[in-house]
């Protein structure tokens, strides 16, 4: 197996630049900027909602749209964080610490400009690194057999389970519960239908799209409906583009900070289950450690905001690497993107770069181009943002509910799937409320059949010795490692959250994922 030639790489770029594909990029960015700036409703929820429609777009258009949406929403989450002190996504919590202080000082537009500049640089850096190293990782991934794939599935589920629950036990329990629920449906060895509970709709197991819509989109309604409004009262009106452009210009003074933060984003993003919410706190903590003026952190300091936002947009590139090369999504959003590819007949994984090299490069280039587009579009959207964040919940909640229900119906044209949205919405809300991990549950549900099939193939082919092969053993060691990782990351997060101006300050739960 050889690494792709320059012809294949250029073909990927040319494929992306075809108008029928490229037109989905700005559309995805606009959708992402809109969604990311709505507090409490993130890109994962939105992409889960539009997932059924991707069948009609085809894999290339769907992924270009989703990647653009992913990048833009990561950046847009900073808008309500800066203006309202409400993180648009969990990863924007560190942005609140610095950005809202800037707003209080009458520098909201300047802060938004800093955020757009840092997000662009962090995103482009991450996308270029992903473009270079992903195919190499993909080549090595081709050596994976059933044992290695089983170990990868185990690794992914353990990583997500151990890092995304309120406690290790609850996170791992969420993964186990997801695996158990994945046991519903017809098994592959004898064709026996396991526990369909009398519903023919469950013969193939729980359908992915209604479950996704329920767990991510619908479950959020239980929180949104109990809150009165998102109206941005008292938010400073942004007048003109001047302060925003000054902020963008100022962000380029902190090159080392942005590069370090972007690298942290891509590294943490590569680990399945960690995600941007952990990465931004780690980056914020590191920026404070490296800063000449650490005492200014928490008071509306430019360095803190830049570190958080450059890292935040560095995560998509990192999260994409395990998704396309190993079929292990690095975050909830990449999980949905992977699902979009799968329902369009393209399975990400070790053979992805072999079978779909041109499309794979086009996807990677879409990440680079989306991040370049982010600068002009981000500046325009930042100016209009305060109007978007003022959407009242009384209108938002029924609209989201309708989109979730109709989206579920659209997939298989079964009314049963609409009831599943409500059922899994309730389950998702309960899992969230009591500190279990929805991403871990969902990933286990998605990877359960893969793990089962490869486990039995590995046992059939080489018995228990299959799992003693070097790569399988290395992945197993990594699985053990991720069980230890939460404690290490928590230490770094605590360093990031502790304000040096207030020695007695304790970390809050705002950064919890």
């Amino acid at each position, binding site marked *: 197996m050889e690494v792709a030639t320059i012809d294949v790489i250029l073909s990927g770029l040319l494929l992306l630049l075809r108008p029928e594909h490229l037109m989905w990029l700005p559309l995805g960015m606009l959708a992402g900027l809109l969604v990311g700036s709505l507090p409490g409703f993130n890109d994962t929820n939105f992409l889960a909602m539009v997932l059924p*429609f991707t069948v*009609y777009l085809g894999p290339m258009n769907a992924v270009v749209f989703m990647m653009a949406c992913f990048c833009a929403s990561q950046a847009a989450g900073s808008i309500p964080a800066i203006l309202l002190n409400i993180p648009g996504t969990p990863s924007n919590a560190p942005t609140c610490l610095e950005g809202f202080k800037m707003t209080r000082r009458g520098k909201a537009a300047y802060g938004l400009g800093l955020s757009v500049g840092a997000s662009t640089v962090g995103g482009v850096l991450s996308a270029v690194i992903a473009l270079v190293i992903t195919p190499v990782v993909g080549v090595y991934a081709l050596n994976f057999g059933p044992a290695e794939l089983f170990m990868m599935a185990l690794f992914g589920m353990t990583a997500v389970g151990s890092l995304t629950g309120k*406690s290790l*036990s*609850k996170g*791992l*329990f969420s993964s*186990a*519960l997801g*695996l*158990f*629920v994945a*046991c*519903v449906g017809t*098994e592959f*060895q*004898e064709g*026996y239908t*396991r*526990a*369909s*509970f009398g519903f023919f709709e469950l013969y193939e197991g729980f359908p992915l799209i209604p479950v996704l819509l329920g767990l991510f989109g*619908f479950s959020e*309604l*239980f929180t949104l*409906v*109990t809150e009165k409004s998102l109206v941005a009262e008292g938010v400073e009106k942004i007048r003109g583009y001047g302060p925003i452009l000054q902020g963008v210009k100022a962000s380029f003074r902190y090159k080392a900070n942005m590069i370090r933060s972007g690298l942290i984003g891509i590294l943490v993003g590569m680990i399945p289950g960690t995600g941007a919410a952990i990465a931004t706190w780690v980056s914020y903590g590191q920026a404070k450690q490296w800063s000449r003026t650490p005492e200014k952190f928490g008071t509306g300091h430019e360095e803190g905001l830049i570190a958080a936002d450059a890292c935040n947009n560095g995560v998509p590139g990192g999260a994409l690497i395990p998704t396309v090369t190993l079929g292990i999504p690095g975050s909830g959003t990449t999980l949905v993107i992977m699902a979009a590819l799968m329902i369009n007949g393209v399975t990400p994984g070790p053979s992805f770069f072999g079978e779909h090299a041109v499309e794979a490069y086009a996807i990677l280039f879409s990440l680079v181009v989306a991040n370049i587009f982010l600068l002009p579009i981000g500046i325009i959207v930042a100016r209009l943002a305060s109007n978007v964040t003022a959407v*009242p*919940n*009384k*209108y938002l*909640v*029924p*609209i989201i*509910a*309708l*989109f979730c*229900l*109709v989206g579920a*119906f*659209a997939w298989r*044209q079964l*009314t049963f799937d*609409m*009831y599943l*949205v*409500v059922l899994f*919405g*309730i*389950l998702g809300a*309960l*899992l969230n*409320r*009591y500190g*279990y991990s929805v991403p871990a549950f969902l990933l286990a549900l998605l990877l*359960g059949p893969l793990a*089962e099939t490869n*486990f*039995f193939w590995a046992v059939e082919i080489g018995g228990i010795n299959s799992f003693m092969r070097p790569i399988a053993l290395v992945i197993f060691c990594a699985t053990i490692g991720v069980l230890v990782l939460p404690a290490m990351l928590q230490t770094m997060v605590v360093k990031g959250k502790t304000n040096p101006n207030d020695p007695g300050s304790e970390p809050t*739960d705002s950064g919890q994922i």
Partner: protein
Amino acid sequence: MQKGQKRFNPGEAIIPTITLAFGVAYFLQTRDASLVAVKWPYIIAALTAVLWLVVVAKFLFDTPNHPAKTKPIDSDKGKVLLIIIAPVIYVATMPYIGFGIGSLLFMTVLFRILGGRSLLKNLAVAFSITSFLYITMILLMKMPLPRLVLGPIQI
């Protein structure tokens, strides 16, 4: 609430109870299956059982250092129930009244209950969203959503 004092939150038992109920129902449903067909579920059930015991033991015996931060929902129970009941009614009635009218009613009623006082505004927003979905899903994407047939007209 003093630090270190045990807080008993019955809500913590909900997920373990759901899991237990699912497990019992699952193995009742598959009691006639061969061992080959349920070997994997047995492995997963054993793993889940171990973690279930850990979670339940922590819930029963662990003493939290920080008070639980789950938001009380007593005052919002009506709204939470509405989010469950309204979609169920919408889904149940859609085959009879069609997607267009069903969606329009669903949103208009929910807007009103959730605090939208202006009927005209509620109708305008509901009509815009329904029209958008109707055009994109039924007219452009040709999805077979239920439609009310009134002679030659389908809504």
